[in-house]
């Protein structure tokens, strides 16, 4: 058994932060940020918002589009770098807010910016095994404003907060396939843990994001090309067979370089990084939702989702919409 995407949804925090806003506390400029990242603004959570409120709203939008009642959901996978609590898992709290069954399978997974595609892979395995047979949700909820180092002008301008979700339905004949790699490298992209109050260790670090931009750029561009080529080749497909490629929105320069390297028409690569920045695993489901609602893909279209990030991990997912 395979699956198809029945509905999509997304939610953004109300607060928008422009590049100009960042110049009030950082030695930077709108021109510097735009030319190096393509980003003009990003959304960040305020005191009244949380990953739970964002994820719940994104799931409700997806359920509405899918014309699906909460009790039909058998599995909810939430992808996040860190939920509102270290424990319980965010998926447990979302399930309650949505009114899902108390027998729903809940789990959080953290595969950084590749999380959404790994979430789809988990759902795919549940459908294929027969452990679920009807419907599932994969929701990505990310609060990068909680992890960015707001004193580091080179990295903090890249990030924002968002949630994106899909409702999946079992579908016997739909094409779904994946290609992925992981290397176990924590040097060029990581988020350190916060200091704790254990009497037995002296670690006093801050839980902030560190990134070697040049090395991440090289990894990203080469990974996009390699993963997409691999998943297409495995399925006897060419780029011409794909309606749209949804790339992780990390930096417009990465997207443009990858498009150039692949030699595929830029029109096949929707992007929204200009308005949202990098929201880790949420970038692709949010972009997918915006594209679906704008009529950018049609039923039966083959699409490829491709992400790269901490791990170092990269993954491509071929789907029939």
């Amino acid at each position, binding site marked *: 058994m395979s699956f198809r995407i029945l509905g999509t949804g997304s939610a953004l925090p109300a607060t928008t932060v422009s590049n100009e806003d960042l110049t009030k506390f950082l030695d930077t400029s709108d021109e510097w940020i735009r030319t190096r990242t393509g980003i003009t603004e990003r959304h960040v959570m305020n005191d009244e918002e949380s990953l739970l409120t964002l994820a719940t709203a994104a799931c409700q939008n997806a359920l509405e589009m899918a014309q699906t009642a909460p009790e039909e959901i058998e599995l909810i996978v939430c992808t996040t770098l860190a939920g509102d609590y270290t424990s319980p898992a965010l998926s447990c709290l979302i399930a309650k807010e949505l009114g899902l069954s108390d027998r729903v399978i809940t789990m959080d997974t953290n595969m950084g910016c590749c999380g959404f595609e790994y979430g789809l892979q988990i759902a795919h395995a549940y459908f294929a095994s027969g452990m679920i047979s009807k419907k599932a949700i994969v929701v990505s909820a990310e609060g990068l404003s909680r992890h960015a180092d707001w004193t580091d002008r080179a990295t903090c301008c890249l990030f924002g907060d968002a949630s994106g979700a899909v409702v999946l339905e079992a579908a016997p004949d739909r094409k779904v396939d994946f290609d992925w790699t992981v290397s176990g490298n924590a040097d060029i992209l990581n988020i350190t843990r916060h200091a704790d109050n254990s009497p037995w260790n002296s670690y006093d670090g801050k839980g902030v994001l560190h990134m070697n931009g*040049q090395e991440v750029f*090289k990894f990203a561009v080469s990974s996009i090309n390699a993963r997409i080529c691999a998943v297409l080749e495995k399925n006897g497909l060419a780029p011409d067979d794909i309606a749209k490629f949804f790339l992780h929105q990390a930096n417009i320069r990465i997207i443009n370089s990858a498009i150039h390297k692949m030699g595929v028409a830029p029109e096949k690569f929707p992007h929204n990084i200009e308005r949202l920045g990098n929201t880790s695993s949420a970038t692709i489901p949010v972009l997918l939702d915006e594209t679906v609602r704008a009529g950018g893909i049609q039923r039966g279209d083959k699409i490829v989702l491709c992400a790269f990030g901490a791990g170092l991990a990269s993954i491509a997912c071929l789907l029939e919409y």
Partner: protein
Amino acid sequence: MKEKLIAIIAEYLGKDASEIEADATFEDLGLDSLDIAELVMQIEDELSVTIELNAELNNIDKLVEYIENQG
């Protein structure tokens, strides 16, 4: 080697090779950090070498020396 690197960088910048000074810093040539990363990827592909970027590698002459020292 140097001529090859100058040709790659000139093409990237849309300039004539004669306009590229090998001892000018990449920054002076108008290249930012991501331009350099993109160029290094192209150089790695074309010359079958691996280049680990660092702040010291800031002009063509130093890049040539780095690649030649790789043997």
